[in-house]
């Protein structure tokens, strides 16, 4: 019923190791919402208390949204936008945009006109 084909790809394995997750954890996630795993995908650090509370609440909400499976929608097209607008383009020309200074105005850390981030490569 639920497939996790990406798990078989080397890139996904690499990601798994990066997140320090075991394969079993993921297969568990295939049958119920593993809050720890999904929070990691969403880049949100949770306290153990939050994990517990969220798990129960999300279980409740997921139980409710299961009702959508009652409907046969095999011949229905999905709606992404209620007022479909496709291929909205403009002329490819340079126009005024946010200045360098304004773009950096709200940065938590900056220097030399750049955002400062933790070291990414050795």
């Amino acid at each position: 019923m639920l497939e996790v084909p990406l798990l078989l790809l080397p890139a996904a394995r690499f990601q798994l190791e990066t997140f320090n997750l075991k394969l079993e954890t993921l297969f568990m996630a295939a049958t119920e919402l593993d809050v720890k795993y999904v929070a990691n995908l969403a880049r949100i650090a949770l306290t153990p208390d939050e994990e517990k509370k969220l798990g129960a609440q999300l279980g409740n909400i997921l139980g409710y949204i299961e009702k959508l499976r009652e409907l046969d929608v095999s011949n229905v097209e999905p709606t992404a936008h209620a007022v479909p607008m496709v291929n909205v383009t403009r002329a490819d020309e340079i126009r005024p945009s946010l200045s360098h200074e304004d773009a950096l105005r709200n940065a938590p850390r900056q220097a030399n006109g750049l955002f400062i981030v933790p070291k990414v490569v050795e």
Partner: protein
Amino acid sequence: MLNQLTISELAAKLLHRKVSSREAMQACLDQIARVDGTIHAFISHNAADALAQADAADKQIASGVIKPLLGVPIAIKDVLAVKGQPLNCASKILGNFTSTYDATAIEKLKAAGAIIFGRCNMDEFAMGSSTENSAFGVTRNPWDTSRIPGGSSGGSAAAVAADECIASLGTDTGGSIRQPAALCGVVGMKPTYGRISRYGLVAFASSLDQIGPFTKDVRDSAILLGAMSGVDPRDSTSVPQPVPDYTKALTGNVRGLKIGLPKEYMIGGLDAEVKAAVDTAVKKFTELGAEIVEISLPHTDYAVAVYYIIATAEASSNLARFDGIRYGARIEGNDPLELYSKTRGAGFGDEVKRRIILGTYVLSSGYHDAYYLQAQKVRTLIRNDFLKAFETVDAIITPTTPTAAFKIGEKSGDPLQMYLSDIFTISCNLAGIPGISVPCGFTKNPKLPIGLQLLGKPFGEETMLRLAHAYEQATAWQREKPPL
């Protein structure tokens, strides 16, 4: 009391130099000083800046400039960018963020002469139905301060109800304008998706979000809709549809219009007093010459489930930008991943975390088709229900909410119960159609406002406003003021 005036009343007085914009602005500031310690409709406001804008408007008026909103104070939900003003989305994660540009809707209101002031409280990132999910404290309902004002635009609704401003702006993703308008006894409108540009609106669910006005009557709603509508090259989902003078639609004549009454909306969970008020309103429309037709929206029961998949999925993607790198608060980490996780863990509140995690889950590998795609398909069925109904009726009438305002804390521990309080407003966003809530009575004890919802065809705001205005003229519920 100048702060109690509507836009059209104040604009007329300003035009004829009966009052100054400074006097009107000062009256709003005095009311804020008097009541906002209790109501807390505003996260912040800059009185000096507001008065400077008023003085500038007075100068223009004195030199004979005529603009539709010249000198009219309008308060703004803390999710819309106003150049030079703070923008927090009622969240800790934005830190000391200050907007570097104006949202298109704000730009248009400024061009029409409005004074743009104050940051109205809201549920964090517009996620909630009670304004209890704000990192800046709860907002209280002006009609009963032990109760919630609704949400997510609770501050904008309370500010208008308490006469702390002449009108305000909110945003509506699943009812966040109409529901608080109903619970605070003011007029709140969500326009058709694409009617008003979303540029400069911090995105929650991009396929559902719309900006709209909170006003003291329907005429003001028409005025602000006209001032903000129109296609915008900076929002590719804004629709190139002509913008009429919406006030021209307010003829008072609704004879022969057909209004659909969906049978699915008159069942379980609907409070008896709310039902009675809506039944009476339906009768009033018959007296006014409109024809009431029973209709069916068979997929109504699935709307909340569809909404909480689509809205959270879009939110999980939109809120990825709050990562502590380019703006807002940051908690340092040894590597970027740790920085993101710590910043987001500390910066987002409970409801936002809940929705991002749910949205991430329904989009994750292996679950996308079962949840997200399924929800998008059911969304088609919900939209088709409305389009089919609109083949025979000109508008649809429903209660705005199943109950009047609930107590602070009553539903905050049970997210699902909170979600279900939006049951009558959510379908409108999924279908992309316009909706308006107008006051239609009060509960007896305690006295709390009840809202009537009118839904229109896509870009059918004129007919919707005509009906709402005719009803308002025949009843005048909107003139009642809260005991402050």
